[in-house]
């Protein structure tokens, strides 16, 4: 096994070197230069760790072999993720990517985004997503020709912010979460809920602490940044993709769509735009009725309003702490187009004049593109 593992590590070292050579083989556009340097540095660190493993004087010692295999796997996975995510984006960067990057760059300035700019690629087959470790966002190929889905860019920026500042965004909330789970489990102990609910609460706790808080927090950060436009974009997305708003396809990755909408409303209330909440909630309730989806029994135990409100308050404070600019503080300035304001205007026009919206949007997209390229 020792020889086999050594061979695998040599092979991995070559893959790592090859990726580095790809990054050194040509000149990249100015958008990409810092990004390429950061990925190259990433690969250099991996290369260093591979060398440490190979040069370990106790390499192959029976006591260490399981740990050396663990370390090899960890390094191999990172190299394969680099090959799968940042490398194809870097080597196939095109004009559409550049336009989305410019849009993201302007948005980042307007919202006072505190982190290095992510690279944006336009080849997503899965709507919007981010690879947070590699500071990469991917969007559908035609997205820069439309405005209504662009609030989702803020959701992905929210994921990256949460990734870098997880403790600031979640630490106090996790205490509230533990408190809620404890309280409900005491109800089980007191015989006011069936005994089988104990593992249910433990499972809910794990989901909240794991994937759910990340999604809720990213929704809330996006709402803080672009306000009602994000709520409308989310409703639009649900109407296209949600199989059942009370039941996520895979609860280990996303909470239910209905709960996410309540999370967005909770943040809108914290930002004191109650009128907007009422207006959106009216249409949202009509949409729910149209779907025919029914709330399952005990659904509210998984997504109580109290937890959503508590999280909204903490996220709001953390956004202020990070000096992010809230949508209500955005102002139109001459010579540039304010993107959060434009996205809200787009939804207003869409809702009031759906027939003429398409032409209005096309004109705005042209103006926006011209402004971004000035």
């Amino acid at each position, binding site marked *: 096994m020792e020889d086999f593992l050594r061979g695998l590590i040599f092979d991995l070292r070559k893959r790592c070197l090859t990726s580095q050579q790809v990054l050194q083989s040509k000149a990249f556009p100015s958008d990409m230069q810092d990004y390429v340097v950061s990925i190259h540095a990433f690969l250099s660190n991996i290369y260093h760790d591979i060398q440490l493993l190979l040069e*370990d*004087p*106790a390499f192959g*010692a029976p*006591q*260490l072999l*399981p*740990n*050396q295999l*663990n*370390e090899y*796997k*960890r390094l191999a*996975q*990172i190299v*394969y*993720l680099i090959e*799968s995510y940042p490398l194809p984006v870097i080597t196939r960067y095109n004009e559409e990517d550049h336009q989305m990057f410019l849009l993201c760059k302007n948005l980042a300035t307007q919202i006072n985004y505190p982190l290095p700019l992510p690279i944006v690629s336009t080849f*997503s087959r*899965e*709507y*919007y*997503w*981010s*690879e*947070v*470790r*590699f500071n990469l966002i991917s969007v559908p190929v035609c997205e820069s020709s439309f405005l209504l889905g662009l609030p*989702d860019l803020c*959701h*992905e920026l929210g*994921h990256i912010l*949460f*990734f870098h500042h997880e*403790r600031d965004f979640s*630490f106090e909330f*996790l*205490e509230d979460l*533990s408190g809620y*789970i*404890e309280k409900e*489990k005491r109800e089980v102990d007191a015989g006011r809920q069936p005994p089988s609910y*104990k593992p249910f609460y*433990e*499972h809910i*706790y*794990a*989901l909240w*602490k*794991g*994937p759910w808080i*990340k*999604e809720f927090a*990213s929704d809330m950060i996006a709402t803080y940044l672009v306000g009602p436009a994000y709520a409308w974009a989310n409703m639009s*997305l649900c109407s296209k993709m949600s199989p059942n708003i009370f039941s996520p396809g*895979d609860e*280990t*990755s*996303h909470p239910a769509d209905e709960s996410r909408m309540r999370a967005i409303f909770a943040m809108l209330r914290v930002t004191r735009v109650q009128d907007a909440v009422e207006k959106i909630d009216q249409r949202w309730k009509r949409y729910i009725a149209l779907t025919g989806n029914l709330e399952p029994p005990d659904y509210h135990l998984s997504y109580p309003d109290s937890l959503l409100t508590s999280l909204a308050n903490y996220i709001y404070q953390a956004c202020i702490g990070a000096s992010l600019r809230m949508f209500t503080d955005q102002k139109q300035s001459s010579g540039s187009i304010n993107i959060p304001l434009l996205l809200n205007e787009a939804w207003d026009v869409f809702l009031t004049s759906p027939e003429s919206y398409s032409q209005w949007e096309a004109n705005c997209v042209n103006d926006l593109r011209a402004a971004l390229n000035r």
Partner: protein
Amino acid sequence: MSDLSTLSHVYKINSDLLEKINNAVVVLKRAQYKLPGADSLSLGQVLDSQKLLSQFLTVVLQDLSPSPGKEREDFMVPSSLIERLNEAKKGELEYYISDLRQANDHLNRDLACLTPKDMTLLDELAAITDAETSSIFRKLWRK
């Protein structure tokens, strides 16, 4: 919007945790079994590794107990890992918790106190962390 964003975050947390635990176990094994390279280990490295593993075990023990306690500032253990442990140790959880407590106690005393059983336990935890990390990796890689 896609589950990839959350997956990539969860993967990073697990992968970093695996790196920390695995490296700390390697340091302790190298020192205790006097493997090549043990001479170049400083006392600080050994103590840091004991401390890190003890912090990890403390959080695991706390999360495996029937009531999750308050969040700790010093160490974050993914809840999916705790679920995986719960599943793997179903039926023997009480004994397992007792073994973990004993290993944690030994870690807090002295390297010499660590028994082969403790080392096996730490290796098993690293293996379970690796299994969780690899399972998330497979989801990420298949996207």
